[in-house]
């Protein structure tokens, strides 16, 4: 049970970072930490004691395999996480070009 609790504490650390930080780059870093904790939780659910990696060996077919379904769900989620982070970085570049700062309180005060 302890790995589940540690994984959830990592998610809460990321959530605390998104709510309380004022710098845009730190918000992006905290969002990335929240995604990492979700991937770890999915991989923890499908683990079976004494199992092997899910590759079928034609010479020795009867074994206990680890569950392949959560791994298939995480495989596409990792690549989509990269695309989302890249899009957030593009928005941050545009904001820095226009206002000259990374601080969200000052961007709210300037108003174009």
């Amino acid at each position: 049970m302890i790995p589940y609790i540690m994984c959830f504490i990592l998610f809460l650390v990321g959530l605390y970072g998104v709510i309380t930080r004022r710098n845009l780059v730190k918000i992006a870093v905290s969002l990335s930490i929240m995604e990492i904790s979700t991937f770890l939780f999915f991989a923890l659910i499908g683990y079976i004691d004494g199992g092997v990696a899910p590759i079928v060996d034609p010479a020795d077919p009867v074994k206990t395999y680890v569950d392949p379904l959560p791994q298939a769900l995480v495989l596409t989620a990792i690549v989509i996480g990269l695309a989302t982070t890249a899009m957030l970085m593009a928005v941050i570049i545009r904001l820095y070009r226009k206002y000259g700062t990374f601080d969200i309180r000052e961007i709210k005060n300037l108003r174009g």
Partner: protein
Amino acid sequence: MKGMTIIVKKTTQLISGMVFLYGIYVIIHGHLTPGGGFAGGVIVAGSLILVTLAYGGDFLKLVKEESGTTIVESLATIMVILIATAGLLFGTHIFFNNFLPKGIVGHLVSAGVLPLYNIFVGTEVASSIFIIFLSLIIFKEESPQ
């Protein structure tokens, strides 16, 4: 964008070809060993990023409009959807039907349509990540003021 020193350029000359070949190997053997379309695609994109970072944008003459890579990416996505729709014509008439013969488990030519899916998804992922890298690092846009 300037390139790096001569040591980095010589090392990239020796290594980047092998990384590209390893990425293609992981894509094609996706139904036999760990890997598949997504893992091989990001490895191929990594080797292209390595060459671009080591030699710089000026030396490679990267022009302002990179249109060839977006054409490759769109064509690969269309091919994935076409192969999935072609399953409606054979067999049990459902979407995503695995209609080619399945062969013996463990041989290179087996598992029906899966190697074709691996190749097209791998090409699409590699060109997407390369386009994202090029537009964020090299083709920065000047401010209109």
